[in-house]
């Protein structure tokens, strides 16, 4: 649905303009279609259940088993992503058949490789962010849903580039955003796919993304340990 609105809106804009915010017609439509796939890969996850598990004490079962809790969720996320990619590909193919847009495919293997790498970074950043918001019920058991809503709808949808390309913001805001982890979820991978970045910027982006992976992983582990200390395993 979103994609159709996106399509017709930009289609109308490009009737009078050749280029908007540095995007031509092909690039903006490619953005929209790659977005479907990237969204399916990055945002689909099962780990949203973690908050509920903490709030209702179901966590007890899992942490008493000799398994790594994070790996448990990474594998569940992975299977969820796989399923979503299948649907995402179908969706894309159908829309391409209906709308017949011109889509850009990168031919430079460096960009393709960097794109794949940036996707892995994106998934890992999202996993950490999603886990972190899921830990809120350790302290406020009633707040499980609110935190996730704030995180997923407001921050992720808006700041990740899932709604519009982030470089249509004024340059200062865009440069600040690039230092936060959010653009690395959607915007940066798509930009790398489009080949809009120079090699230097690609490298820089991957490095910043990786740094965020490490920082968020450390924070997530720290908060997890803190949370477990006050976990009471209620209701069971």
């Amino acid at each position, binding site marked *: 649905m979103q994609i159709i609105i996106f399509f017709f809106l930009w289609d109308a804009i490009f009737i009078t303009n050749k280029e908007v915010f540095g995007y031509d017609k092909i690039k903006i439509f490619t953005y929209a279609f790659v977005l479907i796939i990237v969204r399916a890969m990055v945002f689909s996850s099962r780990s949203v259940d973690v908050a509920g598990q903490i709030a209702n004490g179901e966590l007890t*079962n899992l942490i008493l088993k000799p*398994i790594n809790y994070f790996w448990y969720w990474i594998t569940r996320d992975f299977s969820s992503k796989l399923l979503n990619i299948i649907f995402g590909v179908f969706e894309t193919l159908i829309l391409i058949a209906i709308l017949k847009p011109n889509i850009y495919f990168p031919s430079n293997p460096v960009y393709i490789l960097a794109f794949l790498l940036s996707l892995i970074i994106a998934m890992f950043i999202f996993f950490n962010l999603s886990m972190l918001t899921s830990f809120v019920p350790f302290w406020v058991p009633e707040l499980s849903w609110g935190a996730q809503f704030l995180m997923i709808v407001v921050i992720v949808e808006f700041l990740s580039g899932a709604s519009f390309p982030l470089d249509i913001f004024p340059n200062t805001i865009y440069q600040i955003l690039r230092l936060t982890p959010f653009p690395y979820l959607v915007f940066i991978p798509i930009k790398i796919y489009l080949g809009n970045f120079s090699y230097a910027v690609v490298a820089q982006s991957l490095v910043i993304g990786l740094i965020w992976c490490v920082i968020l992983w450390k924070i997530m582990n720290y908060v997890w340990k803190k949370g477990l200390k006050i*976990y009471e395993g209620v209701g069971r």
Partner: protein
Amino acid sequence: MDRAIIVDHLIKNFEVTEKQPGITGAIKSLVSPKTKQVHALRGISFTIQPGELIGFIGPNGAGKTTTLKTLSGLLYPTSGFVEVLEYDPWERKNEFLKQISLVMGQKNQLWWDLPAVESFELNRAIYEIPTRVYEETLNELTTLLEVKKLVNTQVRKLSLGQRMRMELIAALIHKPKVLFLDEPTIGLDLIAQQKVRDFIYEYNKKYNATIILTSHNMDDLVDLARRVIVINEGKILFDGPFEDLTTKFAKEKIIKATLSKEYSIEDFEKIGRVKKLDFPEVIISVPRSTTAVAAAELLQNFPVEDLTIEEVPIEDVIRKVFKNF
């Protein structure tokens, strides 16, 4: 290793937020949350040898479950020392988790929509049990608990008693050396209770497993536990052999006599405290030390047809223990 479990001066406090009823209460607790310290465990100490089967007795909120959760590594102790199988439970090392199991009466780990055997299969993978060993254990457990025919039935279709037995199998498929059972017979009928009880006894014998069992059901403890720990308000009141509990806390014995002539209550009052007089039966409670004298007196002065001397029922002893403290 001569100690399976060591607990020394274990303290656990919880922080609880209090909220007044209604919307004003909600706002008040948001602005200045009032927290209260709950002292779940106030410095308990005990040690348990490998292979012991211990009963944990205490009223609701006494700290039984808190103790079990701390021993299995779920709760972080506020202070004190805990060691299980020479591990610190809190670290939850895989080697430690593979050797323990915590079963709670109201908790389920089985997958609701799948047959129980699928959950067992998952545990087999998680605990890395060799297939041959797994088959043997499963066969043995299902035979002992008499649920062989039910393993392929969807869990949601099982009765509570059947499900509880499946839970036990899921918890024991990796043959834990230390087993924490929290109210394992809760909500079960008498026959199912007996089955679970027999099974726990067998398991303890066969694998020399260390078992801590909590229950409100005195039959569980009478049948199973050779040693009991009585806990109330986070403190240990008694720790020792089951029989000693009676002699220590029941200062009196019960004399039951069948009479051939009717008497009034006053006539028996000089012998002991009359608990019940319902001709032809009289029940008198007398101090333990003078039981023999009282019985002789009763036989001499009254036309007694039959006389028995009994210990105070265990339920009454426990009730008394909790009342005194």
